[in-house]
């Protein structure tokens, strides 16, 4: 015997499928990323200085607490990210790749960070500063 769905159930199922393949992926992806990025104390975009440099070039971290920094290289060349004062070196971050570094600052102060890969003729300008403060 062939089962026939009620008209309203079919309409609801169809609407669910259409929304699930159109709006839902967009909303779902953005919501997930919003939720996921809450774990990052700082979210840095890395580009060569003439294309925008690190963005932001300064941010604040709390002293004595573990923080995760995300560095997204959206450039076409390799970049790096190092904070010598905090003992952080993300190594080479290839074009299109993302690095996550965890750091627990033990003292307050300003700590410069910079690119460790010769990425452009303005490479030496690719730098910024982390302000470590009491919470």
């Amino acid at each position, binding site marked *: 015997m062939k089962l026939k769905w009620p008209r309203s159930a079919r309409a609801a199922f169809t609407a669910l499928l259409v929304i*699930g*393949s159109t709006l839902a*992926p967009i909303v779902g992806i953005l919501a997930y990323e919003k939720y996921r990025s809450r774990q990052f104390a700082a979210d840095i975009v890395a580009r060569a200085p003439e294309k925008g440099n690190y963005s932001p070039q300064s941010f604040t971290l709390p002293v004595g607490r573990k923080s995760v920094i995300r560095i997204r290289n*959206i*450039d076409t060349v390799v970049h790096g990210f190092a904070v010598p004062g905090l003992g952080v070196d993300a190594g080479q971050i290839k*074009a299109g790749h993302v690095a996550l570094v965890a750091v627990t600052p033990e003292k307050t102060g300003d700590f410069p960070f910079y690119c460790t890969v010769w990425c452009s003729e303005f490479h030496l300008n690719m730098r910024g500063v982390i302000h470590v403060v009491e919470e």
Partner: protein
Amino acid sequence: MPDQTAVSNKFLGIIPMDGRLELTALPGVRWLFKKRWFPMAAILFNMFMFMVILLSGVVGGFSSGNYIFGIMIVWILWWVMLMMVLVPVFSRTWCMVCPLPSFGEWLQRLRVFGVNNKLFGLNVKWPERLRNMWLCNFLFLATTFCSGFFTVKPLATFLLLGGIIAIGIVLSMIFEKRSFCLYVCPVSGFQGLYSNLAMTEIRRKNPAICEKHKNKTCETGNKNGYGCPWLCKPHSLNRNTYCGMCLECFKTCPFDNMAFNLRFPGTDILVNSKRGLDEAWKGFIMMGIAIMFYVAMMGPWGGLKDWVRASTLGGWLTFVSLHASMNLLVIPGVFLVFAWLSKLASGAKDVPLRQVYVNLSYSLVPMGLAAWIAFSFGFLLPNGSYIIHVLSDPFAWGWNLFGTANFPWTPVLTRLLVPLQFITLFGGFVFAADYGFKLALQTYGDRRTAVRGFMPLLAMLMLVTILFGRLYGG
């Protein structure tokens, strides 16, 4: 007029080309084709993918094309699939599952799965003068003017796909059925022409049944399905060119008289129906674009790359002028010389040059498709591995959905790249030469005249093969 029927039905005089294997005779295939959810399920999946692609065009990484989901999926995976598998094997199957016109079609039908043959919208007939490939030709060519952006700028891909969806919706509210797909969509034209070479087809099974069937529900529709959305007459379909393989005719035929056949590749090239200059120019444009893409994307000419990427407006305008001239004038002009030589060599004074020109131009279908397949190897093998990365991290946000976000760039079998390209080009040449001779035979009628008329075409096909071999082989 020459006898148009004296064409050998054997490939290279050896392999029979008339055989058909009906795939819908296999258990389950016809059942699947008759289900309304079948193409729609694939369309909805592709819709999901395109939403992710569109989103990746406006968020996520910006500068590095290799790590952009939209660019990799559209211009590496989809394009390669289209050129290497979908069109040569399954004809216009992509059109069956393409999500881009779906919003417009749903609006027309006011249904997603169900059937409503009273279509919403103005349902105006497409202008008679534009019922050909000319608009597709110009739009596809115009799209390639921006090829320097599409493969590196995600926003450009977003604008292109978003624009196609938007235009599709607007036109579907004005014009009847799939007029947009038939006469406007830039991807449609070359699929139509190259699907003549495909190994599959949708055709009626028994002509007598269709002749007796007065209602022609495959055209008009019934409670089981829509009248052909592609404005074809499935009961007398003899070429793949304008069949979007939507499978509606399987649903509407009350006699199960439609078949999905496996066949020898390219038999539609010999079907002398609706041939015209629009399709000839499509063949020329596809050859020209293959040359330009290779020269600009993989060639060593940095100055040309700067033009294509619009480093300066003047440079880009120079590129557009040269590219348009080559495709619309130079290549058709060169072909005209060989068509004229063919007519001259044949000695057939009663055959119009236009007929020689149009008919022989179809020999470029296998040659062009082979050039595109060979070109596709050139970016699939070195760059295909990027797809593994972007599947896990589609927006360059540091995701790792499938654990492959750190998969390194891994060129695959690149030492075989040039041999594969040469083999593909040679295969294309063999098909082009065989079909070229059959087209000459169709055009000139008797064998001796056709042999003479074929010689200039053969020389041209050899030159084209050598040109592409030289380009790809370096």
